[in-house]
């Protein structure tokens, strides 16, 4: 995906949006720029404010403070029906008393007479759209006669019929079963590549967001924790929340003493260990644990407790008595046999890379004081990065704010 130029025209600029519901902040000073043609995911757990943000864009809710500008014009001044926004809901929200074709045609039929296309044009357009969502021949059915996946495609066709400049999807696959969800996801991605329609979609499913989106905005408690491409979100999490929210992570408490950072016998070489920081934690992905380490390398002795073979990947549960923790490690399915891994086996383990946060104690508003990306000096870097140790700006308040 080529990087999108934020400065170009038709950018949707959200600035300092706040919204409270009976005193509880649903959005807290959210700023975000959405580039034209971009596929943006708002990812967060329930109550993170992602749906509120979407509803504000749709014109179904209004912020208490802040602005939304489209190409420099005030987007919030327009009413929902004037915004040319295509909206798709989790539970389809189809008009159940209308046939599929009538549903799709709805947005065209309610237009004022002078801007309404002729009946023949409407019918032609409906037919095209139904073909596009692979439902040609279903026009005369009622929504009650369709499956969930089909209904959601009708909802999408209905939203596309009005030729929206912005497509908003609210948990569009939330009500579908797993297989249909994956198929529909791929199909939606293809459709987006074809239409290049600016799309914002809300999801709590990180897998969905990572697979579909050009960029992801991770939301938590009404603010954006990080905005970035799926790669950046996964590999360079900006805050401890993003670490814990995205993918699996082993969380380790780091000891800073004698000028170095360590967790048990594992030393984070190259990181400055001083007692300036109240608390330091390291996050290690299960796939970034090296197993069967030579004795010369600093690491832990672990006992294998469980092997969960999940197809191509095996999830290992490793108990490390020295730090009193059980870590999770992922290895390829064939490595289990190659390394002779059996329950009860003792082996030496150490992380290849980790994300390390120095957490502030005094000021709780800051998610952290300092962040490092640590990599084992001799490891083949799993992340193509020039330096093995990277430190980013100190004490960034609420990383990920888009400027």
């Amino acid at each position, binding site marked *: 995906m080529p990087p999108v130029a934020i400065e170009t025209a038709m950018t949707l600029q959200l600035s300092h949006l706040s919204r409270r519901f009976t005193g509880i902040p649903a959005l807290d000073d959210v700023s975000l720029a959405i580039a034209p043609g971009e596929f943006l995911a708002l990812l967060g757990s329930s109550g993170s404010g992602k749906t509120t943000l979407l509803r504000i864009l749709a014109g179904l809710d209004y912020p208490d403070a802040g602005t939304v500008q489209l190409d420099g014009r005030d987007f919030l001044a327009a009413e929902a029906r*004037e915004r040319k926004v295509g909206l798709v809901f989790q539970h389809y929200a189809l*008009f159940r008393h209308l046939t599929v074709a009538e549903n799709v045609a709805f947005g065209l039929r309610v237009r004022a007479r002078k801007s309404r296309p002729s009946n023949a044009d409407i019918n032609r357009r409906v037919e095209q759209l139904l073909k596009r969502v692979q439902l040609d021949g279903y026009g005369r059915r009622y929504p009650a006669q369709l499956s969930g996946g089909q209904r959601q495609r009708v909802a999408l066709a209905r939203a596309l019929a009005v030729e929206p400049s912005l497509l908003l999807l609210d948990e569009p696959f939330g009500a579908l079963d797993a297989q249909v969800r994956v198929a529909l996801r791929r199909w939606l991605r293809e459709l987006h590549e074809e239409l290049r329609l600016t799309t914002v979609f809300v999801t709590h499913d990180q897998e969905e967001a990572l697979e579909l989106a050009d960029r992801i905005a991770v939301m938590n408690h009404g603010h954006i924790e990080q905005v970035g491409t799926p790669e950046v979100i996964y590999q360079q999490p900006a805050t401890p929340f993003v670490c814990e929210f995205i993918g699996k992570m082993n969380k380790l408490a780091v000891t800073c003493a004698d000028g170095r950072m360590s967790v048990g016998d594992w030393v984070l070489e190259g990181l400055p260990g001083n007692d300036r920081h109240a608390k330091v934690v390291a996050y290690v992905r299960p796939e970034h644990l090296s197993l069967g380490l030579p004795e010369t390398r600093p690491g832990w002795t672990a006992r294998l407790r469980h092997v969960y073979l999940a197809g191509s990947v095996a999830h290992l549960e490793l108990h490390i008595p020295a730090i009193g923790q059980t870590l999770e490690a992922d290895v390829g399915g064939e490595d289990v046999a190659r390394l002779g891994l059996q329950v009860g086996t003792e082996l030496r383990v150490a992380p290849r890379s980790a994300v390390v946060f120095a957490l502030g104690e005094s000021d709780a508003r800051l998610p952290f004081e300092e962040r490092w990306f640590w990599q084992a000096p001799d490891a083949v870097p799993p992340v193509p990065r020039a330096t093995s140790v990277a430190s980013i700006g100190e004490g960034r308040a609420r990383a990920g704010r888009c400027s």
Partner: protein
Amino acid sequence: MRRRILPGFGLSLGYALAYLGLIVLLPLAALAWKASGIGIGGMLHLLSSPRTLAALRLSFAGAMLAAVINAGFGLLVAWVLVRYRFPGRRLFDALVDLPFALPTAVAGIALTALYAPNGWLGRWLTSWGIQIAYAPPGVILAMVFVGFPFVVRTLQPVLASLDRDVEEAAESLGASHLQTFFRVILPVLVPTLLTGFALALARAVGEYGSVIFIAGNIPMRSEIAPLLIVEKLEEFDYAGAAALGMVMLLASFILLILISRLQRWSGRWAEQLQ
């Protein structure tokens, strides 16, 4: 045969039909048997009497009009009760059922006291030349009163279960408020609205107690068919009363069947493909 989850289909169906026969069909059969006493000639004579025809017309046209009024205002009241939160909503909601609870004669007397030419409201209306009590409008007013709860009570649960998403979808597709109401909300309510309409209509056709107090019962003008039946009974003309009853029954039955057909057509979207 398809296996059913709950057993006892044959037994419960048998009981249901027997019960329906005992409670509804048996009295009606007795009515038909009694009515046959006057013969074809007597029936024709009865139906060709202008007084009978006028009474039947008032009963059915009045009930129809009352049911239409109830459908409209019942929808409005149900909408307000379901959609808005305001102080006194629960009290207002409880008031809806009062026409059910009140003995109809009491309702009739209360309405008459209000709308009689010397009543609180009647005094003003008479000075403007509008006569309600002792005239057809009084009949319709009483019918509206007794039929009112049906539409509200049938609509309320359906209105409450409507998906807000659907209205929001309509709005974002460019529909105005009126378009959203008439194209999205109302069509879904029509089958239920027709149920309430049918109940209010049936109640109004059969209403006796409240109507006779306010109607004034002037033959050819404000006399309803049930009153005519009572008059025949008082003259010991049982066969005539039964025959008139049969005519009303048939007319009501045809009306209800038509409404039910209309209802099925308006709710055709809810049927699943087999």
